């Protein structure tokens, strides 16, 4: 599974992407975030904002309870500020 980070999530994690294989218990966006927070202080810092962080699964906006099963690409980012 490819993970992408944008804006200040990217800056806090310290890289733009990761390739990961989460354990079987990680089935949702929220569970993936929880698992990432245990990967190191930079992840804990990046994801401490909790609900303020948005996610997209395979390039579609996804809520915390959305499934990540079979996803090829999961992205994490702050609320959008375009337009």
């Amino acid at each position: 599974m490819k993970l992408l980070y944008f804006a200040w999530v990217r800056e806090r994690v310290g890289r733009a992407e990761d390739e990961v294989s989460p354990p079987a218990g990680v089935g949702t966006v929220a569970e993936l975030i929880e698992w990432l927070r245990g990967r190191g202080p930079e992840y804990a810092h990046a994801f401490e904002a909790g609900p303020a962080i948005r996610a997209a699964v395979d390039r579609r906006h996804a809520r915390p309870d959305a499934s990540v099963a079979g996803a090829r690409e999961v992205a994490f980012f702050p609320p959008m500020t375009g337009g």
Partner: protein
Amino acid sequence: MAVRLQEEPFDLGDEVARLTLGRTDAGAVVTFSGICRDRADSGERLVALTLEHYPGMTEEELRRIEAEARGRWALADSLVLHRHGRILPGEPIVLVVTLAAHRKAAFEAAEFLMDYLKTSAPFWKREETAGGGSWVAAKGSDDAAAERWKA
């Protein structure tokens, strides 16, 4: 019916001329241009904005937003054009154009497109000031503006 993502500035007159050339069925053309202002949200003087986006998803999301607008209103044509990269004060950031037979549809669709762009297209603005830089915080008023279309 088109979406475009580009680094270069664009020209409003050229874009509208391209959409309206030879058309005699659309009585109403509405445009919205978002321009980079010279003040950061903090009130400091802004040196530049940098717009980061999510390549791949951005194009898909712009297309989804435009398709949604065209499902709700009878538009003769529409354009959503968004820049990314570094943008200087006074330069355009975003352009929405809607063409319809009558003005109500053209105005409503343009407002809808902007509200959805603000809250759903994967762009993030970073403000560069003399004192450094910071990511722009999302505005609750933008979420509220987008919510009204769900009623």
